[in-house]
């Protein structure tokens, strides 16, 4: 009995040692970012202390004002929320189709759709730009969103199809007999069952869209439509990088993503295991 207990303690301590070791490497950069954001520029370069000499809380105010986050923040929220919702809706619908339904050229279309994951086209922004110009969508939110949404298709489709394929078919078949439409099954049964996968997809796509700036800067002209990354550029001059303000700005810009992650990761945990199968 004692031996069993000792073994259990040992396993648990090894587990925690591994987890803590990895965790420390993940936390340190965040700590460094926070600490740097509260220093002065000179301090960052000439001293290597872990903590700031005096805590420059003003950096945050200055960063927020200088980067004009006020304008950009809402734009980014808008692009991310709408972009991610569309990606999730469109790809889950298609992924469900590919996983469950029969139609013409199914495999052909699937591989065609995920082929964009494979070819990294340099300068893809040029034909996209010309396309948006033709569609008179340059410098519009719609144009940028369409680029974002189409950019997330292949990845989402690829991830979700596998998840749908793995879901047990029995419930869906029962619902079909009960007279549910195919769309109804997708919407009311398959989608909730795939929650962990969808939450994952939401997190990853939020990250992509929130951090994107190349497409935004190429497509948009009007400052009032620019995303938050545009604000961060102010601190990275061609010659001088204002590190304290940059770090403060980065901290501000990272928080929303962390919140999204915190909200979403709960669904990864409580997904199917919590008993969705029974219901």
């Amino acid at each position, binding site marked *: 009995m004692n031996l069993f207990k000792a073994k259990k303690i040992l396993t648990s301590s090894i587990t925690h040692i591994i987890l803590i070791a990895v965790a420390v490497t993940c936390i340190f950069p965040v700590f460094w970012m926070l600490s740097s954001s509260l220093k002065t*520029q*000179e301090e960052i*370069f*000439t001293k290597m202390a872990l903590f700031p000499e005096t805590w420059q809380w003003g950096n945050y105010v200055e960063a927020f004002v200088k980067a004009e986050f006020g304008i950009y923040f809402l734009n980014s929220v*808008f692009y991310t*929320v*709408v972009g*991610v*919702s*569309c990606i*999730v*809706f469109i790809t889950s619908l298609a992924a469900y189709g590919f996983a469950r339904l029969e139609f013409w050229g199914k495999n052909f279309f699937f591989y065609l759709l995920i082929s964009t994951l494979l070819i990294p086209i340099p*300068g893809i*922004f*040029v034909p996209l*730009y*010309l396309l948006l*110009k033709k569609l008179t969508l*340059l*410098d*519009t*939110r*719609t144009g940028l*969103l369409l680029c974002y949404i189409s950019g997330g298709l292949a990845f989402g489709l690829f991830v979700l199809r596998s998840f749908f394929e793995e879901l047990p078919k029995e419930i869906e078949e029962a619902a079909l007999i009960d007279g549910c439409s195919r769309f109804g099954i997708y919407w009311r049964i398959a*989608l*909730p069952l795939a*929650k962990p996968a*969808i*939450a994952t997809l*939401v997190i990853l796509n939020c990250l992509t869209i929130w951090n994107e*700036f*190349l497409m935004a*800067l*190429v497509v948009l*002209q*009007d400052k009032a439509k620019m995303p938050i990354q545009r604000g961060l*550029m*102010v601190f*990275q*001059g*061609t*010659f*001088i*990088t204002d590190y304290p303000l940059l770090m403060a700005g980065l901290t501000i810009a990272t928080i929303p993503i962390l919140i999204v992650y915190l*909200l*979403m990761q709960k*669904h990864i945990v409580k997904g199917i295991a919590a008993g969705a199968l029974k219901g």
Partner: protein
Amino acid sequence: MFLQVLFVALALTVAGCSQKQEQKTDDKNIVKIWHWMTDRQSAFDKLADQYFNETGVKVIFETYAPTDVYKNKITAAASGQLLPDIFNPLSDKRELASYIKAGFIADLTDEMNSGWKDIFFEKSLEQNRFTEGNEWDVKPGYYGVPLDVSSLMIYYNKDLFTQAGLDPNNPPKTWAEFIEAGKKLRAANIQPFVSGFGEAWLIGAFAASYQWELFGKEGILDTIDGKVAYNDPRWVRIFGLLNEMKENKMFASGMVTMVNKDAERTFATGRAGMTFNGSWGVNVYKSMNPNLNYGVMAPPQLPDAKYPLLIFGGDGSAMFVNAMSPNKDKAIAFLKWLTQRPQQSFLSAETLNIPSNKESAQDLPDVLKTFSESIANTFENLPKLESWQVVNYININLQSVMIGEKTPKQAADEVQAEKIRQEKAKK
């Protein structure tokens, strides 16, 4: 639950996406400028306000960084023929020629010749000027308006020099003295030399000074034409210079992959005795360490060289007028105003850059004066360029010599082999 919340957002799309582009109030009186110098935004904005008050013409400066992104934006806008009234294509001369030939950049020769060009440092105009018989068949003339000038020199830390027993007011002039200084610094436990040689162009610029010194203009053109080989003893010697620096442990740790911003930090924090950097460094060092006590010197000379040693430099950033712009005249008028002494002096005081206007240069602090005097010794305008692949090979092989992967002779042979390959590919 969260799915429902998520999809409510879809409704927003309909509401949010259909916003039309705002109609500009008065397009005729607006001049739009794109630039990558984000750190000058506030200075530019102040000037724009002043100009609006004086003339009623609204100038909008839009700056985008990093430069890669800016470059993408310019390329896309060019392909869609939606370039702003004034811009800089951020390109080498070859590409600049393409922009001009495709009709994107206005010829400013007439304006320049009617007195405008006289206010500038001569060299600052050279980079954006095409001469008779240039490789790209561009109509000879002036195309760019320089905003400021810059050049690359060697900064040295006076305090560290003193510490190593070197005279801080008498920096090395010849290559031998340079190596000697390096040895003394190393002996005093100071890293002798740092520079962002991880950035190909910077190591190339360093070597090019010696190319000018050993080959002269004709020699360089002959090399581009293939009449002189890259494994010529003089080129082997250039590679040998880096080898000599390596043998004497002059390079700071990690220099071969270092970007210039990191090199600047190393020098600013007193962790290297010398650095090869541009005139913009003055402002950078001031922001990183205001107490840094340094001087500036030209790259050390090879006493037996036949030609003068020239340095990399010329215009720092220039403005080009969009030939297709309906506001072309207003754009030119604004640039004329911007390059006058008061505006130039204001810009250089705000951003610590050397103005392209000669007269404003008199208002400069001492260190910058040294730089502005060096502008006369910058590389000459060449009517043709070496293919970028060969240039790339030179830079990579310079790095190889730096880390002792190749001997100078091996490196020179490799470059020559690439040159032959490129000549063949051209045919």
